[in-house]
């Protein structure tokens, strides 16, 4: 990264963050407690545990599942999940024949109300560049080998629609409660880079 003027001798982002916060607080434009609250919400309250509840309910309740697949935003809001980056959520269902996977090649758009903030791998240039071009190879590298007979559908979130994958319910989970099912559902399965296993 030598030979360019933009990063040379630039203060680290950590100290620039501190600097910007002090500039904004001393102008009365933000309060540090408001930033704390915002951060705490995404650390504690908004995350893949929300999406897991949606998926588990869809697995045990066919009416809910049908509603979820036709009106994702509305069905998700019924469980209390809505907010930024969730204006219009589309739920896409995996089956024996079809595997869905979500990417955002242009930035890192992600359905915050149900999955929280995106993990590092989702924001990685390798993921953003390769998932649209060699999805089977990349999924395999991430631990998901798909049979050639399975159709791969890659959703590039290039507008304001946000996509949530409804994974297949694993076999051997017939006796589990909705809460127990939710505990099995992973973030990676709801993005489409993994399957849910029975534990």
């Amino acid at each position, binding site marked *: 990264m030598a030979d360019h003027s933009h990063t040379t001798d630039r203060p680290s*982002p950590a100290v620039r*963050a501190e600097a910007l916060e002090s500039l904004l607080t001393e102008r009365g434009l933000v309060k540090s407690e408001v930033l704390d609250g915002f951060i705490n919400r995404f650390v504690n309250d908004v995350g893949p545990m929300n999406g897991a509840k949606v998926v588990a309910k869809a697995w045990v309740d066919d009416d809910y599942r049908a509603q979820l697949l036709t009106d994702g935003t509305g069905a998700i809001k019924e469980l209390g999940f809505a907010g930024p980056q969730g204006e219009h959520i589309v739920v896409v269902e995996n089956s024996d024949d079809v595997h869905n996977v979500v990417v955002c*090649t*242009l930035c890192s758009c992600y359905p915050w109300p149900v999955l929280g903030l995106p993990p590092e*791998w989702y924001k990685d240039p390798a993921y953003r560049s390769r998932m649209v071009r060699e999805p*089977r190879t990349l999924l395999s590298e991430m631990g998901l080998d798909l049979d050639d007979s399975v159709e791969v559908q890659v959703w590039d979130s290039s507008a304001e629609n946000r996509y949530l994958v409804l994974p297949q319910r694993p076999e051997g989970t017939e006796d589990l409660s909705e809460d127990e099912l939710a505990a099995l559902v992973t973030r990676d399965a709801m993005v489409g880079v993994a399957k849910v296993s029975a534990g």
Partner: protein
Amino acid sequence: MDGIHDMGGMQGWGTVTVDPDEPVFREWWHGRAFAMGAMSMGLSGTNLDAFRHGLERLHPYDYLADGYYGRWLACAETLLVDSGVIPPGAVEARARNLSGESVDEPADVEENKPVYERGGAGSLREIDDPHAFSVGDEVRAKDIRTGGHTRMPGYIRGRTGTVHALRPAALLPDTNAHFAGENPQHVYTVEFDSTELWGPDAEAAKLRIDLFESYLEAT
């Protein structure tokens, strides 16, 4: 714009590493950058599309070196400086002073927030225009070349696909990012076969991409 952000189909990035124990914010400042980035839109009188364009306007070296939250922080600074909420150079000067140096900090400048009409909260809009395309129609992504913001990925330019679904109308990022009007439009999910995008040897897959009506033309 043709920038580093338009990553779909680029090669040479290596593989993806998943850390199953990744925290929401790996560094303490990631959360601060996230919160200030989110608030910077309102504070600067701009919008989400201007924010995304702010990310794209970062120098490519910085775009990559800063990482996701570093980009949010740099973008917040860009929007706040553009709107005159903080003066140019203020963050760097303050950062140096916080690091033990003693440098002059720039004086405040006059506010310069953009003046433009907003059609409501969020991005979705109700419009009366009939749809130009229906599910099943064959459409071609126009060969759009712009130096400004667009949400049409470069890798589909000139390629032909099929309308898979109609989505709610939304304001057009290409103009909204530049405060040149919302121009709400219908949005379509268009399906492209992988071989149409990447050639006959492409891995078998269907690519589904959300595109604004003005990005598309009939074949």
